[in-house]
């Protein structure tokens, strides 16, 4: 949102800027650039880029700090080994006559001491058993990358951990700034993705139910203003599909199914539009107090020229639309308790590709009108009206919009875990259970670190493969966390509702 507004303002600036004299140009351009930069910075993509940059920076820093120590450790072990050998040789030299028992006892002691050193190095200093001459390092760039990612996502494997004091202090500072940054980025991305999925889902879902449902709602429209704006700017799209129950409904008969929609041509459309608008106007004329205007509209509708050209059709249709909107809108505030508490006419933006969608009846963007159901109370509840017509459109459209079910979200999540499980099990030669266990422990940010990809690859003589593994693990991790954030965003409402219901049922809360 921020970026689009800043872009728009920048465009306007540009338009105006061209007219400016050249003296103030550079400073204005600089300020514009700064503004664009900040706009993008705080947007979603900017945050993501910041996080990626932060992780890369962290990888570089940690690699520099810790790699030396790792090599030092390998050197230490080599030294221990040499010391042990020296001691052994001295033992062998000292004893002039070699008695087996004596000698073996001393040797045993030496070996024990050596073993203690190795165990201490492995447990406390992170020694991994490699030799000094091995090119494989734990603190390679990709290893440090995985480490940075585990720090800011608070997973914290621990197979790689800082051993130098500088590394530890840097880890603390890195985490203090990185963890909130990561949470911010995740929540933003999660919301973005959740909105996208929600939109796509209601799109797909409603397209299947177009025959049954008689209303289409758009998300987040402050209804009346947008309706007017859309209709004045762009007119009614040629693919407007009308889904109105015929007025016989109001004679208390069971509502017949809405008319089947034929491929639309502008002339036909105009006729259909006129027909239905006539019916609406008739009804309103019968109901509304302001019958003069509705009669006027009726008169207009009945006496238009049916052989007008396409453009004129659209223009006249939009004009009628506008008139009816003002008419219906005002009457809405006085009576007509629409069951869904939405204004009578809503217009959606025209389809982005009008030509291809003209024949497709799956286009959900529609102009729709809903007439009050029969028997609904005509007693005007003005407080409800004012609330409904202005502010709570959003909430109601949320309620009316198809929410992604919790089961679907859970299925997606478990599918992702299974995918990761199979991939990692195949790569790392783990069992499937180990793979699923690893994925779950990672994505829940518990992060034991007993199973980490890249270890078995390092054993094989394939150093590049090990590095790619770690990077893939990082990517899997980040995408998985974004998915989880999305899932939370999607199911939050429903879970809260269910929890309050359960609480009410149990009797914890009394509301």
């Amino acid at each position: 949102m921020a970026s689009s507004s800043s872009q728009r303002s920048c465009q306007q600036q540009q338009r105006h800027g061209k007219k400016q004299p050249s003296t103030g140009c550079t400073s204005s351009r600089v300020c514009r650039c700064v503004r664009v930069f900040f706009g993008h910075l705080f947007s979603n993509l900017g945050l993501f880029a910041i996080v990626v940059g932060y992780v890369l920076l962290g990888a570089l820093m940690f690699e520099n700090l810790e790699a030396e120590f790792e090599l030092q450790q390998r050197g230490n072990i080599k030294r221990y080994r040499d010391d042990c050998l020296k001691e052994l040789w001295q033992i062998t030299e000292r004893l002039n006559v070699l008695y087996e028992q004596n000698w073996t006892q001393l040797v045993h002691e030496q070996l024990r001491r050596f073993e203690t050193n190795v165990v201490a190095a492995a447990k406390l200093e992170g020694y991994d058993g490699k030799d000094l001459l091995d090119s494989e390092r734990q603190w390679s760039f990709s290893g440090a990358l995985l480490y940075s990612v585990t720090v800011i996502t608070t997973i914290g494997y621990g197979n790689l951990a800082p051993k130098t004091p500088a590394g530890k202090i840097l880890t603390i500072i890195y985490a203090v700034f990185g963890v909130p940054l990561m949470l911010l980025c995740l929540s933003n991305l999660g919301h973005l993705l959740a909105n996208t999925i929600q939109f796509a889902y209601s799109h797909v879902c409603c397209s299947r139910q177009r025959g049954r449902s008689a209303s289409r709602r758009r998300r987040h429209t402050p209804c009346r203003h947008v309706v007017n704006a859309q209709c004045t700017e762009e007119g009614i799209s040629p693919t407007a599909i009308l889904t109105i129950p015929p007025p016989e409904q109001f004679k208390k008969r069971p509502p017949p199914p809405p008319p089947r929609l034929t491929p639309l041509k502008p002339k036909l459309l105009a006729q259909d539009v006129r027909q239905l608008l006539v019916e609406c106007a008739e009804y309103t004329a019968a109901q509304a107090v302001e019958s003069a205007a509705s009669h006027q509209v009726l008169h207009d509708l009945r006496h238009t020229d049916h052989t007008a050209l396409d453009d004129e059709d659209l223009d006249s249709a939009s004009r009628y639309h506008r008139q009816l909107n003002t008419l219906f809108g005002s009457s809405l505030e006085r009576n007509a308790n629409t069951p869904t508490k939405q204004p009578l006419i809503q217009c959606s933006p025209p389809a982005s590709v009008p030509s291809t969608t003209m024949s497709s009846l799956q286009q959900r963007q529609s102009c729709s009108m809903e007439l009050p159901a029969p028997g609904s109370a005509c007693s005007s509840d003005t407080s409800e009206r004012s609330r409904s017509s202005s502010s709570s459109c959003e909430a109601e459209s949320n309620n009316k919009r198809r929410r992604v079910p919790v089961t679907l979200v859970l299925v997606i999540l478990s599918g992702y875990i299974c995918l990761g499980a199979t991939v990692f099990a195949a790569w790392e030669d783990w069992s499937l259970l180990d793979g699923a266990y690893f994925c779950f422990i990672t994505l829940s940010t518990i992060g034991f670190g007993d199973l980490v990809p890249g270890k078995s690859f390092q054993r094989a003589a394939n150093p590049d493969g090990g590095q790619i593994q770690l990077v893939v693990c990082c990517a899997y991790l980040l995408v998985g966390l974004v998915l989880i954030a999305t899932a939370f965003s999607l199911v939050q409402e429903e879970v809260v509702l269910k929890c309050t219901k359960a609480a009410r049922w149990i009797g914890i809360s009394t509301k």
Partner: protein
Amino acid sequence: MERKRSSRHRQRYRKRKTTCDKIKDFIREFIAFMFSNVGIIGLVVGYTICGAFMFQAIEGTEASDDREEAIKDIHSARSKTRDRLWEITQKFNVLEEEAWREQAASEVLKFQMEVIDAINKGYDGVDDVKDLSETSQWSFSGAFLYSLTVITTIGYGNVAPKTEWGKVATIFYAIIGMPLFLLYLSNIGDILAKSFKWSYAKCCLCRGCGSNRDSRSVSPENSVAVQVPEIIDETDEQYEESHIESTLGDSVKDDTITVPVTLCLAIMVGYVCGGAILFSKWEDWDFLDGSYFCFISLSTIGFGDIVPGDQIYASKGLDMSFIFCSMYLMLGMAIIAMCFNLMQEEVIHKFRSCVKAVKNCCSCSGARDDDVDTAPIE
């Protein structure tokens, strides 16, 4: 007479009804208490204890089996190396240092590899099989700490399940335990925040900070979960689940006392330092290691490279270390939840004003036309 009989009938019927109702009411109240503020502590502790028993049963035997194996491997490796070295020494009638060394070095290297393998299997320096049960990782306190690290998502990893059943049990234990712990955090954070605010307000008033409010009118501000779409973090989203219950009955009182952010930060830093001092004294670490451990644990990163009670040839003081560590973690996370609660509104407000200031600054300096940021219609 009839009336008396009918009234007695009615009374009896009422009694039957009321006992049944009483039971239902009692159950309801019990559940409400358990999920309410104070009971949730008991619930979490109980859940952790159950988990400790479960994991001890599942993993304890297997782990000791593995470790026994590792110890046996070490023993055999030692004796094998010893014998081989003896053979080498015997072979050389005239002992030449270099030749002998070459052969001995390869033996020692092999021995080192076997030690590393044993370490990976779980060897940690305990030599005698008899000492295994005393120094088992999966003692009760060790399993308790393990369960706690699972539900708090700290996940040290120094103690990790090796059996299949253990892994499956961990997954399900986590699925149920993590939301429970989040509920605990939000509830306790709420309570602590409220009481802290209240006492802070009292303190402020007592010191006469120049506020015009009557002492009686100062009331702890209700912590309403503020839904900020941009800046809300994951954990706050989960807090909302439980916030509904805790905020339903309360009324939002108009109170403008907010605890300053610096005080909250000072509390957190103080807690970390206090823990660092205690742990470094107890575990013989230095101060940096102690604060590193406390920070990494409380931020739920939880590397597990440094864990109290996890030394080689661990002493008998194992139990107390783990228990104290667990208590420290539970209290610490509650305090962090409290601080987040207190800081939330102010931080968001400051962040927003910061962003706005930056934007205004840019727009002011760059505006040649009346370019107001109109809210886009979406």
